């Protein structure tokens, strides 16, 4: 229960930072994808199911606030969370570098999926242009922010693990 509340708060905070504070600190016109970092982190630290649920919750929040078709962003985040849970099985879950690299790859996957659903299907085919103006800066910025943000998430995660162990 405690974990669910914490995840919920983390999602809201990530969303708020992404839509408000980072609006003032754009890098090459993009904001970092905080919700993606969170999804990747939970997938990597806690496995496929956790990544899946955090992904769905984050995606639905974005869809309900800003989407036209409800569920598309949720599907993208869900797949990314699930995939990261899978990768988490291969690597040591305490590793500090792998999740940062994973964030970069996930942001790339996010770019491809988002572009396909929202632009390619509307006949906007110039993928190279979109990659250079949005995809690449987004990947760089998100990965940079992930270095700090991932530490905070994993720190909180370890704390909660400790509390839950004590109770049990």
């Amino acid at each position, binding site marked *: 229960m405690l974990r669910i509340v914490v995840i919920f708060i983390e999602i809201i905070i990530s969303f*708020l930072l992404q839509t*408000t504070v980072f609006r003032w600190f754009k890098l090459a016109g993009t904001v970092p994808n905080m919700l993606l970092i969170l999804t990747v982190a939970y997938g990597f630290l806690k496995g496929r199911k956790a990544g899946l649920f955090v992904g769905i919750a984050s995606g639905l929040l974005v869809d*309900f606030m800003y989407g*036209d078709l*409800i*569920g598309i962003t949720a599907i993208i985040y*869900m797949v990314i969370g699930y995939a990261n849970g899978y990768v988490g099985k291969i690597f040591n879950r305490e590793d500090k570098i792998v999740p940062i690299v994973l964030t970069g790859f996930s942001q790339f996957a996010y770019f491809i999926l988002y572009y396909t659903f929202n632009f390619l299907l509307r006949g906007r085919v110039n993928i190279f*242009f979109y990659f250079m103006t949005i995809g690449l800066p987004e990947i760089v910025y998100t990965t940079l922010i992930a270095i700090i943000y991932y530490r905070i998430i994993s720190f909180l995660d370890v704390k909660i693990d400790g509390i839950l162990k004590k109770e049990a």
Partner: protein
Amino acid sequence: MNRRTKFNIKSKHLLIVAMILLVALVIVSFISPNKVSPVKTAVGNVISPMQRGINSVGRSIFERWEKVQNISDLMEENELLREQVNTLSYENKLLLQDKYELDRLRDLFELDEKYAQYPKVAARVIAADPNNWFTVFTIDKGTDDGISVDMNVMAGNGLVGIVEEVGSNWAKVRTIIDDQSNVSGMFIKTSDTCIVEGDLELMEQGVIRVEEINRDAKVEEGYEVVTSHISDKYLQGILIGYVKEITPDPNNLTKSAYLVPVVNFEHLEEVLIITEIKEKLDKPEEE
């Protein structure tokens, strides 16, 4: 965690089930957007006040940051501006005289800038779309302040966009530079109509696309484009921008061009919402 052992679903199956549910949700929201809009409004009512609070924190940090960065630039600029103030205040006097004359002439012709008459409400931009693809933003006024869907949004004297969704104390605005945006426009000098379309590929150059200008239209670079009388959502006569680089289309029936918007969309802070909605024709088959 006894709960886990009781229902032990494989995560693979969970993924499939969730996928099916979400795809169903996409289809539902595609077929009947009205069904999901109450949920959207409810979510917005909860999240928007939080966005408003955090946004002010973000802005104050940003402003402090800017202050530190720009202090030497500002001092130079200050001197320049002082000089400018002197010259401008002189020019202003001359212009004021012209203005009185203009007012008189306007009265004679009974022409008035259309948008000066519309009732307006000011609002603050509090949040932007989390994705970097679209240019949609949230403002801090909603139905409580008399805002409703399809109201036109301006900044300065130019068109910004249109209210797309509204909650009790927030509203979502889609800007005219957004990739999915379409505005019916008109050249003020020649009354030729055109379609103004946002395009992400052009956003970087600070222009948007203008299409479907009649082949015979005598338009030239620098002409003003305003919202047209045939638009069903935009009020007539709001300035959108200035046209440039007019080229004939391959079909030889129409021309297209670029348009420089009068509004600067970087760091929009305050906008004006026109609280008047263009009257719609009654549709014969109302729900």
